[in-house]
């Protein structure tokens, strides 16, 4: 629809869509910065041979209580993913796999958007992707703790 249309409702919708596109593009650039700094960090750890436990300490909540916080398994999931063990990463913390897949699709779509001159549209930031992520974090935390409490299974 033409954004110069005089109907207020349409004008508001067009402005909101433009704003979401701007926010999505900002997130794309932030994602590039994140990837760059992450790569530098991994290279530094590998070259200086610093163990990951010195950078990210083990979970204190788990050490004290024996149960899992929402982030437990995240470090192992990232390490497994970097080693190409996607299934292991999924078992350790499914949010890591989900977020990595979303991140890759998001970044590639926006790169194609720029290269093709908007012929292929970049993925828009939308609340549903975050709601799914939050649900994954909470559900996996609850499931892990139920398995630990009822059956003594440690993950």
């Amino acid at each position: 629809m033409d954004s110069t249309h005089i109907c207020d409702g349409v004008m508001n919708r067009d402005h909101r869509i433009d704003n979401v596109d701007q926010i999505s593009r900002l997130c794309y650039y932030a994602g590039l910065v994140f990837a760059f700094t992450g790569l530098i960090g991994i290279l530094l750890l590998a070259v200086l041979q610093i163990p990951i436990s010195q950078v990210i300490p083990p979970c204190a909540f788990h050490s004290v209580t024996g149960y899992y916080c929402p982030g437990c398994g995240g470090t192992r999931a990232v390490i497994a993913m970097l080693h190409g063990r996607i299934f292991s990463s999924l078992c350790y913390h499914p949010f890591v796999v989900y977020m990595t897949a979303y991140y890759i699709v998001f970044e590639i779509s926006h790169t194609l958007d720029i290269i093709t001159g908007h012929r292929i549209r970049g993925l828009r930031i939308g609340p549903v992707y975050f709601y799914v992520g939050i649900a994954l974090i909470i559900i996996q935390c609850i499931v892990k703790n139920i398995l630990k409490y009822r059956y003594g299974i440690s993950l």
Partner: protein
Amino acid sequence: MEQQANGGAGLSIASMVLGIVALVLSCCIYYISIPCAVVGIVLAIISLKGQRDGKGMAIAGLVCSIVSLIPAIFVIVMGAALVDGLNAYM
């Protein structure tokens, strides 16, 4: 007014992202998760004050930030208690 409403959507998204980051790092890297949670709460409150856009995301960000503070504060309190106990023992 439109720009304010649209700015609210950006703040809501930022609040939710910070809330998720704080939730995932809640007690392992609490020196990152606590500032993220505090900023997430502030952004969520600013976004919720009269803005229509992104209200759901602001509420989600607020809840995640508050929930993430619980294990982080627990870890700090336990750490302080441990240090006190060690000092008393020595």
